[in-house]
């Protein structure tokens, strides 16, 4: 191949992807305006408006059925909104993009239950997530560059899976699977990370590590965390949005949220 090796390894985005990176000059990276999604008449999201600032760490909480996962689905293109607009930066209309285009533009997602390529090794899972050219032709002739290998190994260290690099992902314990999926997000290097219940099934020590990791990521990345675990949300010290019946119920820091009458009513049922 005629491309110089070093540049092939460093080239994290194909030229077409650079053209479609989000414009965040106004400060916001995600604009969700009046979005409605209904399933057979049930409104999972009901005229929801929500903005996420570039580089912030945001937690989204809410009781079951509040629309948290639907929100993730809409942002990543898995579900199409029935009404409203969704913009990544001020320039990319997410409702017009397919899942892989949204991913290439820089939105990464970690699912609620760990979703891995179970038949592949831990290393190979990371290799596929790595931000490298992702077309049929480029993967057919792809060679793993030293810089790429280094980034994968770095991610393995970060998520504590260096010893299990050659094991099949399907053989990992539940907590390790959660970490592997976070590692896949790291090497994918998205601008915006959507993380659905990251600490489910983790031990206390692991939760602490996750807290540190997510806090470190914020700033250079925008991180949106959906979580049930209030203890964990409190430890993140981030802005919190509360969803209820597909609508935004309250927004603010944890202190404000906890004293909000409506939030107390929804959570305590009374």
């Amino acid at each position, binding site marked *: 191949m005629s491309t110089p*090796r070093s540049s*092939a*390894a460093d080239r994290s985005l194909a030229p077409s992807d650079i053209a479609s990176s989000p414009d965040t000059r106004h400060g916001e990276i995600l604009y969700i305006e009046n979005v409605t999604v209904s399933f057979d008449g049930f409104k999972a999201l009901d005229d929801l408006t929500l903005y996420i600032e570039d580089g912030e760490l945001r937690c989204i909480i809410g009781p079951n059925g509040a629309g948290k996962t639907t929100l993730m689905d809409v942002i*990543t293109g*898995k579900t199409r909104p029935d009404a409203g607009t969704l913009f990544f930066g001020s320039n990319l209309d997410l409702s017009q993009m*397919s*899942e*892989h285009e949204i*991913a*290439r533009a820089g939105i*990464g*997602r970690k*699912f609620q239950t760990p*979703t*891995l*390529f*179970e*038949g*592949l090794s831990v290393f*190979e899972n990371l*290799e*596929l*997530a790595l*931000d490298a050219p*992702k*077309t*049929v032709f480029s*993967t*057919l*002739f*792809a*060679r*793993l*560059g*030293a810089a790429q*290998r280094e980034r994968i190994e770095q991610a393995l260290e970060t998520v504590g899976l260096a010893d299990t690099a050659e094991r099949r992902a399907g053989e990992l314990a539940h907590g390790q699977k959660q970490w592997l999926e976070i590692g*896949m997000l790291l090497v*994918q290097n998205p601008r915006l990370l959507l993380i659905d219940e990251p600490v489910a099934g983790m031990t206390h020590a692991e939760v602490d590590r996750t807290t540190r990791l997510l806090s470190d990521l914020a700033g250079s990345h925008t991180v949106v965390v959906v979580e049930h675990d209030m203890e964990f949300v409190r430890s993140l010290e981030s802005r919190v949005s509360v969803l209820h019946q597909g609508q935004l119920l309250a927004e603010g820091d944890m202190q404000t949220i906890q004293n909000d009458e409506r939030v107390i009513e929804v959570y305590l049922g009374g």
Partner: protein
Amino acid sequence: MASDPVERRPILSPVGWLLFAAFAVFSVVLLPVLHLLPGADSALRVPDFAIPLLGKFLCYAMVALAVDLIWGYAGILSLGHGTFFALGGYAMGMYLMRSIGTEGVYRSELPDFMVFLDWKELPWFWYGFDQFWFAALMVFAVPGLLAFVFGWFAFRSRIRGVYFSIITQAMTYAFMLLFFRNNTGFGGNNGLTDFKRLLGFSLQDPATRIGLYVASALAFLGVFLVCRGIVTSKLGRVLEAVRDGEDKVRFSGYDTFHFKLFVWTLSAVLCGLAGALYVPQVGIINPSEMQPANSIEMAVWVAVGGRGTLVGAAAGAWIVSAAKSWFTVAAPDLWLYVLGALFVGVTLFLPQGVVGSLLALRRGASR
């Protein structure tokens, strides 16, 4: 390895290359020599009937590789690959019909079945098939184009799993009915047969038969390397990822539609090649090759040998075909029951297939 600036997984391990070379020498050199050199009554002699039979088995093995590529790796189960095999076979058959010239029963320029149907001129879609290069091109182009169009609509609509398999089964059935009709222009239920020559060489000549066998062996070795090249590439890992969780692959930034369409079309093209080599060795191509049962048998080959192993798929084709050859002579009525029992037995007791289980054992022992 770690000091290498760029890496790609090797197509075969050193031991793998050694085995590959051994098989190549055995199939391409040793078998033909053992057919030609020893005296007629020598125990070492490979008998006459064995040469086209082995050539036929090599064609089946190519089909098994093509099916394993999409099923074992990408998780796409086709129950219609008989169509692609037959279309490659028909393209070759049309060339063979045209090269009969005026030596047919009716001494006409037209193929016999057209004279029989009282057709006065060659249908337009038979034009060009008097040229070998054109027919050779069509061997790849026709199955490839059909698979591309079929795959385009099916994968674009995100049809997968058992629904996809059922549609492929319906496709092969529809093609079988279409080709059974005399009006379709491919000889109806008799198909194309009574071939005389290929590139000027008489098909009755033992040397031609050996040539065709060797061509099949070389094609098989080539197809095997192409498939290995794909499954050891990053593309191969993307395909395995599609098998394990297609949504996740999309969210990782891959357009799975393109990946599936690529490997599906390639698989069909490889089947077409196998069909084209098969037809001159068995001397006939007819719509029965498109029977739903034939395509299912192709999937059984792969299941018996072991999905996602390539070598296993080829071995599965040989195991099942050898059993079929024996049973259809010894107890023809029993064969379908044996095939069914084989499939059920393998699914229940050897889910990784015969070769797949052996490979797993070896991996376990070396750990």
